[in-house]
């Protein structure tokens, strides 16, 4: 029987210890990077769930295909296609277990890049999920780490920023570096806390991560990279090249998005489709099955329970445009009532409920 007494174990060429041993209480801290769970603060980071559909060319901004991924544009001449796309076998993301991406395909921006033009995608995160994450976000020696895979058909640099919402809004801008066209690249960024950050313990928007596919000069300017600074609407990111934006049918894809507490990018936390779907349904779900209403006096009603407790009282609507329903009432974050001012019976429709950030 022998015993080794050490206070840390470090790789030969490493600058930090892989295992730090507490000298008094018999515990240790290890920088384990694989097979960890419940670390990813991003929902649907592998882009598996797309309840609203897999491709959309509608104008405007909102949630169109891949769950939790918000799309925004301004000033464009031709609509962008938002899609849940397949990742080709033989690529590195595929070999790591990624099968889907969120993909934009540019339209023809025939008017060129105007100062107010923008194409963005983002994921909004509840404030309470940051507040309760374990990140000591007001300390500059406490970190979160962001990682994602990205591919663009155009070789250029893109800016990706994190933005805090509560208190005085703070903005942290990173860059992808110049991407090789049509080649998947993994980007990892470790981000410190800052004394100006504030995340309230509530279900409101606390932070978002945003991929700036293009921003015109109305919203770009002098902005430090890799540092927290107060938000400025006129300089959200540095000036951007318009190469992607002015290339007809240019594509932009991301997958494998993970945001975790700590200074180390651990392996992506792969969750099952069912787990990811339930997490997404806190913000949106749809049920296209026909509902049959029960007679209630001279009226008809049906009580509908949401699959999970939603973030807040959702906006609810019919999944068809039949207009059969008189109202959807007594809406809570747990359930709602379908109501028809008639005893005629079945309404024959489904439901969409949205409580997005």
């Amino acid at each position, binding site marked *: 029987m022998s015993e080794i007494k050490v206070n840390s174990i470090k790789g030969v060429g490493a600058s930090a210890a892989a295992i730090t041993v507490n000298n008094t209480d018999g515990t240790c801290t290890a920088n384990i990077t694989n097979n960890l769970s419940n670390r990813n603060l991003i929902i649907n980071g592998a882009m598996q769930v797309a309840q609203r559909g897999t491709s959309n060319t*509608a104008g405007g901004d*909102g949630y169109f295909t891949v769950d939790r991924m918000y799309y925004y544009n301004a000033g464009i001449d031709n609509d962008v296609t938002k899609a849940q796309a397949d990742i080709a076998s033989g690529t590195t993301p595929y070999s790591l277990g990624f099968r889907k991406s969120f993909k934009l395909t540019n339209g023809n921006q025939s008017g060129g890049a105007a100062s107010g033009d923008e194409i963005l995608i983002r994921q909004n995160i509840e404030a309470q999920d940051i507040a309760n994450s374990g990140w000591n976000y007001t300390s500059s020696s406490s970190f979160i780490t962001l990682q994602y895979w990205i591919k663009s058909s155009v070789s250029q640099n893109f800016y990706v920023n994190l933005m805090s919402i509560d208190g005085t809004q703070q903005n942290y801008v990173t860059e992808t570096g110049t991407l090789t066209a049509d080649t998947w690249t993994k980007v990892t960024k470790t981000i410190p806390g800052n004394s100006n950050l504030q995340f309230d313990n509530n279900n409101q928007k606390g932070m978002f991560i945003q991929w700036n596919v293009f921003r015109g000069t109305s919203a770009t300017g002098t902005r430090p990279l890799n540092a927290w600074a107060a938000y400025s609407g006129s300089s959200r990111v540095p000036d951007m090249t318009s190469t992607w934006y002015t290339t007809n049918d240019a594509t932009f894809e991301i997958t494998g998005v993970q945001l975790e507490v700590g200074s180390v990018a651990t392996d992506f936390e792969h969750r099952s489709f069912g787990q990811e779907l339930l997490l997404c349904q806190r913000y949106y779900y749809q049920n296209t099955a026909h509902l049959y209403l029960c007679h209630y006096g001279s009226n008809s009603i049906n009580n509908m329970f949401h699959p999970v407790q939603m973030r807040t009282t959702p906006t609810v609507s*019919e999944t068809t445009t039949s207009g059969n329903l008189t109202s959807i009432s007594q809406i809570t974050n747990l359930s709602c009532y379908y109501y028809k001012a008639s005893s005629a019976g079945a309404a024959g429709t489904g439901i969409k409920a949205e409580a997005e950030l």
Partner: protein
Amino acid sequence: MAYPTNPIYKLVKNPFSDKEESVKIVDADSNTKFVPFDEANTDYQEYLEWVAEGNTAEAAD
């Protein structure tokens, strides 16, 4: 987000309590949406902005 210009919001009563608890709007894709009076709901936040601009929803039936 661009608001539909016509029709606009219409107040909706809870048929059980007869109280106004939501507004109805037909969006750009012709979906009829029922927006609850919940300040954490982003659609309700947009409705409040619309009201703050001086607009008034159609009365409930």
